[in-house]
């Protein structure tokens, strides 16, 4: 039935009201003349409403005359009438058309690029390379080849092991997987020595394969051979083996820090101002107002205003929030300065320590001066220092 309705809609039809005493006769005459009438409803005792195709309307006049009915068009429906209406409102029709075309065209561009999966690499560097390869904001989807860009980015960035570009709507997501830095592996067949990775005093040396050169309690320097893979015995030929050993040593770590007693701190006054701007494509629209504060914190936020699911359009609202700051001079007591020194030293120490290191002893010496406090830290650590090194030349 929907097909017939659609057909009628495209052809155009009218809702008519027929009034008269011989309505049955009117209907019979209409059908015998081949006029299709549908949806006949009784309105009152002497009138009906019905739908009639546009092309048959002229032929009704004859029937109306012969059956003494009056006919009245209540409503005209369908595409031909809508078309007529549109013609009357040309500007409106044109603007709707332009809007549809604009949206359609905009959908075929990339308006947002996102880099996912970076750990150590700055997403901006990936973005920059991708931009250079031709995938930029505002580029047409058909203008670049996804796979060739993926390949070229992989070639340019040796630190990546995989690059995948996914395009959804107007957004391109670049997924990257970073290469894990693996130490140079020496296979069991290759001969190697074990050397010290740090200077220190050997705490315990357990040789599994190879000849130990040093003993417990020996002081070693960085790079010194601890276990040799070259085995020299009397009466036999010199052999080369793959050395294996567990070597722990006590090592030292030193660091220093200075803290001024006179400090300047910034405090928020609670007053803030927000400036709004529109960003269309890469152009910022809006008045650049001067910031009313001399010292301030700036937070910038960009928000996509127009987006339909994955289809994001390049209109952004930028809000710049300025928070007023005020300088507060502060004098630290010696105790406070010491504490801050210690905190900073501890933080740096944590970065230096390897995974399985044990801190045996920690000493901090403070030197109090007129305007500042100096601190020196000495830490004794127990850690593995063995590092394999391939025997070259043979």
């Amino acid at each position, binding site marked *: 039935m929907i097909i017939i309705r659609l057909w009628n809609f495209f052809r155009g039809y009218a809702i008519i009201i027929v009034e008269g005493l011989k309505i*049955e006769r009117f209907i019979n005459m209409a*059908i*015998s003349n*081949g006029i299709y*009438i549908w*949806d*006949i409803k009784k309105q009152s005792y002497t009138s009906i409403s019905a739908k009639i195709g546009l092309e048959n309307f002229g032929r009704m006049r004859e029937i109306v005359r012969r059956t003494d009915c009056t006919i009245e068009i209540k409503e005209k429906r369908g595409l031909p009438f809508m078309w007529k209406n549109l013609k009357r409102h040309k500007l409106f029709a044109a603007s709707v058309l332009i809007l549809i075309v604009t949206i359609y065209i905009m959908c075929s561009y990339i308006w947002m690029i996102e880099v996912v999966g970076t750990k150590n690499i700055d997403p901006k560097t990936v973005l920059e390379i991708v931009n250079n390869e031709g995938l930029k904001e505002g580029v047409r989807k058909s203008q670049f080849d996804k796979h060739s860009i993926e390949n070229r980015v992989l070639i340019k960035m040796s630190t990546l092991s995989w690059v995948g570009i996914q395009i959804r709507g107007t957004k391109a997501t670049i997924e990257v997987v970073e290469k894990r830095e693996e130490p140079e592996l020496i296979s069991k067949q290759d001969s190697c020595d074990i050397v010290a990775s740090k200077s220190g005093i050997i705490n315990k040396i357990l040789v599994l394969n190879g000849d130990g050169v040093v003993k417990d309690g020996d002081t070693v320097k960085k790079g010194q051979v601890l276990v040799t893979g070259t085995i020299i015995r009397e009466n036999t030929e010199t052999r080369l083996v793959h050395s294996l050993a567990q070597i722990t040593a006590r090592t030292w770590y030193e660091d220093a820090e200075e803290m001024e007693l006179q400090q300047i701190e910034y405090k928020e006054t609670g007053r803030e101002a927000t400036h709004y701007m529109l960003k269309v494509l890469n152009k910022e629209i809006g008045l650049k107002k001067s910031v009313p504060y001399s010292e301030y914190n700036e937070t910038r936020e960009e928000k996509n205003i127009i987006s339909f699911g994955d289809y994001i359009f390049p209109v952004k609202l930028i809000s710049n929030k300025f928070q007023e700051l005020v300088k507060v001079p502060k004098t630290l007591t010696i105790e406070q300065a010491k504490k801050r020194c210690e905190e900073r030293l501890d933080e740096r120490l944590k970065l230096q320590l390897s995974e399985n290191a044990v801190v045996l002893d920690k000493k901090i010496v403070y030197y109090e001066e007129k305007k500042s406090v100096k601190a020196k830290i000495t830490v004794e650590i127990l850690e593995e220092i063995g590092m394999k090194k391939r025997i070259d030349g043979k």
Partner: protein
Amino acid sequence: MKKKSYKIKETLSNALELPKDLILDVAKVTLVGNNSVTVENHKGILEYNENQIRVNTCGGVLIVIGTKLNIKSIIQEEITITGEINSIGY
């Protein structure tokens, strides 16, 4: 004369098992539930009211009684009536 030809046609359709509505030009009434009735081979409508529609057919006048009766569509061979149908009779 007319009666004779009718009888011949009837025996013919019986003998050959042909559908009667095609050969004898009688009305075929299809009722779907109680809200739609289709009459094929009608000869025009005689009366149209919200509660009663009388349709002329070859075999006599078909009367459809119900409430809120509308003529959904009407063409030369077929008429479809919708609404709440209570009874159909000749």
